[in-house]
Structures are given as structure tokens and as C-alpha cells.
């Protein structure tokens, strides 16, 4: 192999691997990321079983129905609109009514939300950032209340 051929081989292989990486990233960006929505935004959406959504808001007071089996139901609200969420499994330790929550899952044809993971806060002085921002936009959020250490 001449010097030139060697160089071309290396450049070819490097180009191919990088092209694969870029291709994979673009393919994954298309349908593997979840978009953050508030209940108001969700109300205007058409259900798409292939689309993952992160629903954020507050757990509506008095809406938690723990049921008798392992499926729980609760409503997530942004104080304008609310959506019913069902989830099978164990809720996080810091899940409480009136507190911020992020549920990830899929919007069902009947307008309810089926979550496969539910995130609450990590500690008592933390509100999921997305939820805080969304509530702030709607002027329902008071800085001093939650984000102080």
C-alpha cells in the first residue's frame, strides 16, 4: 500500500463511522425523545400511540385514587386544565397531592394519560425544573415558596 492509499483507507473508515454515528443520532432524534407538555397543551393534542410525552404539573388535591390493586390514578393540573393519569407500580417517595410531578408515557385515545414512569422531587426544596418553568409562565408560581434551599 502506498502512503496515499493508507491515508485514504483511514479517512474512508473514519468517515464511515462518523456517518453512522450522525445517522443514528438523527434517526433517534426523530422518535426517541419525549416532549414536555403541560395539561393545557395536552388538551389540544391528538393522541398518537407512537409519541412519548412528559407531562408535568401539580398533582391535583384530592384526586389521588390508590385503588385496591397496584394501579393508581391521579389528576395532573396546571391550574387551567387537568388530565387523568394512570400508572401501575410504586409511586416515588416524595409523590404528594398538591406537589409537582412529571409523568412520562403516552396519551391514550380516550384522552387519559398512561404513564410508565413518574418522577417527583428529589428532596423537599426541589420542584421539577420543567414544572416550575411551566407554572411560572402561567403566573401560578411563587419563587420563594419552593426553590429556596
Amino acid at each position, binding site marked *: 500500500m502506498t502512503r496515499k492509499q493508507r491515508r485514504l483507507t483511514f479517512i474512508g*473508515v473514519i468517515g464511515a463511522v*462518523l456517518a*453512522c454515528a450522525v445517522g443514528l443520532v438523527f434517526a433517534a432524534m426523530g422518535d426517541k*425523545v419525549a416532549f414536555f407538555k403541560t395539561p393545557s397543551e395536552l388538551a389540544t393534542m391528538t393522541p398518537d400511540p407512537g409519541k412519548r410525552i412528559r407531562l408535568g404539573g401539580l398533582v391535583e388535591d384530592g384526586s389521588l385514587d*390508590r385503588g385496591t390493586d397496584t394501579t393508581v390514578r391521579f389528576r395532573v393540573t396546571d391550574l387551567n386544565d387537568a388530565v387523568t393519569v394512570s400508572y401501575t*407500580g410504586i409511586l416515588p*417517595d*416524595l409523590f404528594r397531592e398538591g406537589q409537582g410531578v412529571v409523568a412520562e408515557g403516552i396519551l391514550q385515545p380516550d384522552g387519559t394519560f398512561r404513564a410508565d414512569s413518574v418522577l417527583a422531587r428529589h428532596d423537599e426544596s426541589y420542584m421539577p425544573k420543567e414544572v416550575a418553568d411551566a407554572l411560572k409562565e402561567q403566573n401560578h408560581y411563587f419563587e420563594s415558596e419552593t426553590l429556596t434551599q
Partner: protein
Amino acid sequence: MLNELGHYALVLALALALVQSTVPLAGARMRDARIMRIADPVAGMVFLLVGLSFAALMVAYVRSDFSLLNVFQNSHSAKPMIFKISGVWGNHEGSMLLWVLILALFSALVAAFGGALPRSLKATVLSVQAWVLVAFLVFILATSNPFVRLSPAPLEGQDLNPILQDIGLAIHPPLLYVGYVGFSIAFSFAVAALIEGRIDAAWARWVRPWTLLAWLFLTLGIAMGSYWAYYELGWGGWWFWDPVENASFMPWLAGTALLHSAIVMEKRDALKIWTILLAILTFSLSLLGTFLVRSGVLTSVHAFATDPTRGVFILGILIVFIGGSFALYAWRAQMLRPGGLFAPISREGALVLNNLFLTAACATVLVGTLYPLVLEALTGEKISVGAPFFNLTFGPLMIPLLMAVPFGPMLAWKRGDLFAVAQRLWVALVAALVTVAVVAWLAGNTHLLAALGIGLAVWLMAGALTEPLVRAKVGREAFGTSVRRLVGLPRSAFGTMLGHFALGMTLFGIVASSAFESERIVVMTPGETIEIAGSRLTFEGMVAEIGPNYRQEVGVFRSVRGGRAAEMRPAKRIYTARQMPTTEAAIRTHGLSQLYLSLGDAKEGGAIVVRAYDKPFVLLIWLGAVVMALGGLVSLSDRRLRVGAPRPAAKRASGARTA
């Protein structure tokens, strides 16, 4: 008094770090050995002063001195002693102090053990190291001072976040930081080489042990963090592709690439410019990780506080160091003479391939981590990039790399023979194929991917074992001779073997525990029994208990497996000071597998939601990391690296082949 002393020591450390950052560098430019020599005692003093400051903070924690705001916010007098100590770095200010302490430790180590380095290179390295020190000392003193006082002093503290009150936290951050910050040495060496405009194989030989040391600690730190999340968060997951995890994983990927490219540079005097770039990149990713975790742009268990001034400050440090080093690189890299030629099929070629895949994989992780931040900043749209994205991008890039791993160490330098290597690896290949067949037969067609994954793991393990055996000519020469050859192999050969073998172990654990996991979420009443993957689990009832700074409801379970019974006690805890609940999982280990139990909500009539998992071979995930780090340690003990100063004659005499 002691607190003020700690504060003062920190200021003094900054003053000395300023000296260290300029004077030795000037000495190197003037070629004045006396001025250059100042670097050593100053680096030692900076370390002692930061150490004193750290010790003062620790004493404040041990004594529960709530006149310090930091102690008040993160400690409690009833907290067990071990968590009072680990609480020092369980918060933003303290963890930054630990960061700087390790940075100073590394520069002191270079000062103490870098005797074989050329005088001017050593002085320049120590100066560059001090630039980073100065930046972070100013950061601590200006925005994150742990010695801020409270007056009047409160009687009781607010306690540490309960999920951080765990032995895992005592160990995880120091390990991780030694790794993260240890890469600063590779960075300083790279920048020093660019400043000096001179680089050769000896440079790689000096840098490699430091990189290896940092890498092995980072490996342990990541594994420890993963295991901690697994048992402490109660979800049974061990990796979430959380941005904060990615922040530690990216330097690991780049650092692994650096370890491998430094070999090419050391042995063949090639890939110099690339190795320099990798050294800069690796530490840049460490800095980026620090920024992501500490700035509050991400919310996670690691983001202790969200204070925008800190974020902006670290972003400034990030821009100056990354931007500055890349600019220096663009300006000076052409001065470095490119090294030897090699054929695409050769040890060098294999190592280039390794670097290519590792950096490409690292880039996809970087994109996945930063894309949501960039998108939100540009469009306001909020997205979350999680496991599905990384499985689709990172996974496919790892598979060809893992398939190629056994070939690498067996190819000859300069020009290798792929066919001959394949012939030597036939035993490993047969072992892998038999494994695929057996697993597919046992588990059924639905688990074909899992069977292939486990086959790949066996290929890695068998391939790693093949290399030293082939080199010792086991089975080709008299048994005694080959044993003697095997013992006589350089330690680094065994380091390679262990590292690559461990990769197979981890992969085995990942595939087996995720493909063959059993999960049951059930409501259980006292006296009820369930079966999960060969274990019988009986719920005996709930017991209330009181701990030092918490109270808990413990679910008492009896698990019977293979005729042996054991009690399992998962719990729901409430930490009294913060009124914060946590879930404590119970884990029963059988062989390399684990039965994992965590509690959910209580229902009427004493019933409770129980989540039970059986995770086959899950322990291999972390054992693999431990063996990997052990491989690094064995490689570090190689005579070649211990002896230090390479002399051409000594190099030829040892005749060591390494990978």
C-alpha cells in the same frame, strides 16, 4: 477560630497558587533552574493549605458547629458519625472544596514524583495545573465559600438529604473526583507540550501512568455511583442515562480512548497530535461535567443548589480553559512532528479504530446530553432524551468495537495479519458461538438478541484470556517453558487481559440482568406468599422502628430459595429533621444474582404494595468494573512505568509489548 483558620488557609492557598501559576512558567522560558525549582515546594504548600482548610471544615461537621451556614444546612447533631464526615462533601461548597483538594493533591504528586521529568516540562506542567487551581479557588472563595458564618448560631441543623446518608455517598464522590480531576494532569501535560512545542514517546510514557490512575478511579467511582443508585433509589435500575451520569461517563469514554492512543504514541511515536487533542478533550469533558452538575442547569440529586452566579462563573472557567486550550492547540499543533507510518491492519490501526468508536460514542452521548439544553435555549421547547435515544445511538456504536476488542492486542505493530489472528482466536469464537446456541435453545427464540449479547460477552472474555496464552505459546511448547513465559510476561499484558475480560463480565451482567429479569408488582397481605424466579417470598407483617435520625416501617419478609431461608427487611423511612420519606430496598444475593425487594404504598387491612425483582447475574455489572480497575492497577505496577525515565537502551532490553 478553626473555621477562620480554614478560610484563611484557602485564601493563602490562592495566593500561593498564583505564584505557582506564573513563576515556574517564567523560569522555564528563561531557562533558569532556580526559578523553575520554586514550583515543587509551592505545589506542596498549596496542597497542605487546601488540606488544612478541608480538615477545618471536617472538624466543624464532626463537632456539629452550626455557626457555619454550610454545616447548619447539611448536618444534624443526631446524624451518625460516618455521615457527619461524608456530609462534608454531600453539598455544593464542600464538594467543590474536595474537588480543589484533589486537584492540589495531583499537582503535589507531580512535584514529588516527577523527578525524572525534564526540568522545564515539569515546571510548565505545574504552572498549567495551578491555572486550574486558581480558577477554582477563586470560584470557591467568591461564590461557594463553605466558611460563611451564621449569627446567632442555630441550635440544630437541617440535616443532610436522607438519600445522601448512605455509605455509598461516603465513597462515591471521592473516587469519582480522583478520576475526574486526575485527568487534569493529562491536560496540563498536553498544554505544557504545546507551550514547549516539543513532544515525543517519552511524553506518552510520563502521561500514561497518571491517566491510568485517574481512569481506574473514575471506573470505580462510576460503578459505585451506579450501585448506590441501584440499591438506594428503590427502582432497581442501575443506569438511567441521566445527564449527570452522562457527565461522568463522557470523560470515561474519552479517557479510555486516551489510554489506548497513548500506547501508540509511546510504542510507535505516532498519533501524537491526536493524543494531545484527546488529553485536552478528556479534561474538558470533566470540566463540562462539573459545569452541568454544579451550575443548576440540570435538576437532579446531584444539583445541590441552584444559584445562577455559580453557573455563570463555572461557564466562564469552562470557556476560558476549553477555548484557550483549543486555541493553543490550533496555533501550536503543527509544530509537532508527525510520527511513524503504519498499515490499516496493525496494532496501531486497531487502536485507531478503538479511538474512533469511543470518541464517536462519546460524541453521541454529548449530543444527547446537551441537545435538550440547546433546544430549550433556542426554541423554548422542552424535550427529554432518555434511554431509548442512547440505546439506539450508543449501543450500535459499541457492538463493532466490542467485536474487535480481542483482535487488537494480538495484531502485530506496523503490519498485522488479520487471518493469522483469527486462527488463534478460534477457541474463543467457538466458545462464543456455543454460548449463543445454548442460550437461544434454553431461553427460546424470543431472546435471540440476548443470546447474541451473551455470546459477545463470552467472546470478549475468552478472547482476552487467549492473548497471554498465545504469547506464552501454551500447548505449543513444553508445559514448563510456557508457564515460565507466562509468568515472565510484562504486567501490562495482564492489565490488558483483565481490562478486556472485565468488559465481557460487565456486558454479560448487563445483558443477562435486563433480558432475563423477573418483575412482580403485587399487593400482599400479611401471611401471603408469592413465587418469583425460584424464590418463595412470604410477607410476615410490618414493624415500626426508630433509628438515630429517622423512624421507619419495616416489611418483614421470609424468602426461601433452594431450601435456604433468609429474612428480608425492606423499609419506608421518614427522616425526622426534614420530614422526608425514603425507600430502603432489601437485597438478597444468590450467586451472582440478586432478589430485590422494595415497598410501595400501604393499602387497607395491613396490605402493602410490593415490588419484587429477580435480577440474574446483575452483580457482574459492578464486579466487571472492579476487575477493570484492577487491570488498570496491574498495568500501573508494570516495571516500565515504575522505573519512569525511559532510556532507549532499557526500552530495547525489556522488549515489552503492551496494549
